[in-house]
């Protein structure tokens, strides 16, 4: 139906001065289905890269491969390489637990630990790893809650249960929790899809502020969101990477006809 050759954009003017994370011929399977058919993507450091595409294009599977969460699903298989600072995180000598400390994740629906307070949730990554120093925990909690733009709203109620917050606050708590372990890359899987516009705006604000310290990769259904907050945009379709370019190029003058069709809503 959308016949013709799928063009991969050659980003000649792309400034990928430093690449933090890259995939090399990344393939992923789920049972018999080949969900990712060989992805080669470079994620620039300290920038926000958005991954867009219609449902089923493989974008969620892609980021779940980036922190080795995909392999936890039964019947899941991953081939190819994901290179963080020059090291392939799928090589047998690499411990996936360590990978996940350096590449954090925020999920589509906020999932704070229900048995823990706000404070405990924020520092869960440290506490469960055995950190006991109260001063350190206090300072990390404050720092990460501030970075998630949540500190002012909860600083007097840190002992309150983590689930007694609004949806948007819970999601920011999850962001704080992910940031507390000081990752280098933060993966976000449609973090605002369950939130109202005001909550979404707060989170988008925090994402833009965060890129100073972290490399952010965000999967989003919402094209306007991708246009608002990302520096680079990747468009995927049916398990393949169709186009990757600066966001302004993709939204003003996409090189691939497929990308154009998708973002202008002419699919179907």
């Amino acid at each position, binding site marked *: 139906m959308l016949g013709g050759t799928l063009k991969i954009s050659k980003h000649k003017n792309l400034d990928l001065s430093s690449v933090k994370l890259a995939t090399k011929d990344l393939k992923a399977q789920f049972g018999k289905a080949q969900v990712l058919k060989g992805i080669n993507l470079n994620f620039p450091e300290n920038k926000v890269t958005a991954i867009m595409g219609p449902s089923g294009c493989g974008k969620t599977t892609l980021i779940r491969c980036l922190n080795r969460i995909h392999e936890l699903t039964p019947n899941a298989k991953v081939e190819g390489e994901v290179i963080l600072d020059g090291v392939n995180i799928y090589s047998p000598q690499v411990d996936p637990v360590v990978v996940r400390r350096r590449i954090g994740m925020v999920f589509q629906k906020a999932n704070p630990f229900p048995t823990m307070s706000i404070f405990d949730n924020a520092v869960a990554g440290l506490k469960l790893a055995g950190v006991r120093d109260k001063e350190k925990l206090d300072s990390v909690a404050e720092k990460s809650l501030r970075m998630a733009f949540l500190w002012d709203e909860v600083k007097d109620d840190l002992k309150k249960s983590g689930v007694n917050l609004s949806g948007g606050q819970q999601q920011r708590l999850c962001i704080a929790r992910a940031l507390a372990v000081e990752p280098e890359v933060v993966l976000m899987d449609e973090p605002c899809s369950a939130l109202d516009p005001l909550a979404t705006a707060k989170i988008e604000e925090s994402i833009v502020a965060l890129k100073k310290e972290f490399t952010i990769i965000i999967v989003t259904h919402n*094209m306007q969101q991708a*246009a608002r907050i990302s520096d680079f945009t990747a468009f995927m379709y049916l398990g393949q990477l169709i186009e990757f370019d600066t966001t302004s190029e993709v*939204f*003003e003058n996409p090189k691939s006809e497929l*990308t*154009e069709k998708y973002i*202008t809503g*002419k699919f179907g």
Partner: protein
Amino acid sequence: MQRLLDKGLEELTTLVYKMGKDAEKAVAISIRGFLEGKEASSNVHELSEILVGTTVEVEEKAFGLIVKYQPVASDLRIINSYMKVAYDFERYSRYAWDISFISTRFNGQSACNKWIYDYISKMAEKVLQMIAISISSVKSLDTELVKKITRTEQGVDKMYLEFLGKLVEQAGITNECTISSTLVVRYLERIADHATHIMEDVVYIATGEKVTLR
């Protein structure tokens, strides 16, 4: 598949195209009026007023589409460019109005030498050609005629400068004719310029590239 935006885009295109046609008519009438010494200002005036109103309409419609649909890519380029094209069409009519005003004001029936009228007639022909190309390109988004329009524009520019030179040479005195013909030639050159602007916009819509054709 018809998107909600598509209906709005169709309406916008129709408006802009009509503007172009009206402007073309205004320019043709005003030039004929000048060359034949006929009274044309009321027609041209009417058309010009309509176009001013339509420019506002186009702007409002375009803005409305942006607010509603947050268009991107080619849709955004079209909407953005149409606003500029509408302005350029309005300019056509404005210069047409200026030309007809000159006719009325100076009313030079046989005040000018034939060579002047011939010269202006030739120039006007080229300019009307450019206007026609600009209008059809906006509709078709065909960038094939870019070369033609660039060449013609250069020709018009050349004629403009040549005329000024000739005028200084041949007409020793300043009279109604020298002034009116200078102004008319100037307006024709300006119209040609705007036609080129429009072509640049067409290229931008079609390819996303921002070019300068002048």
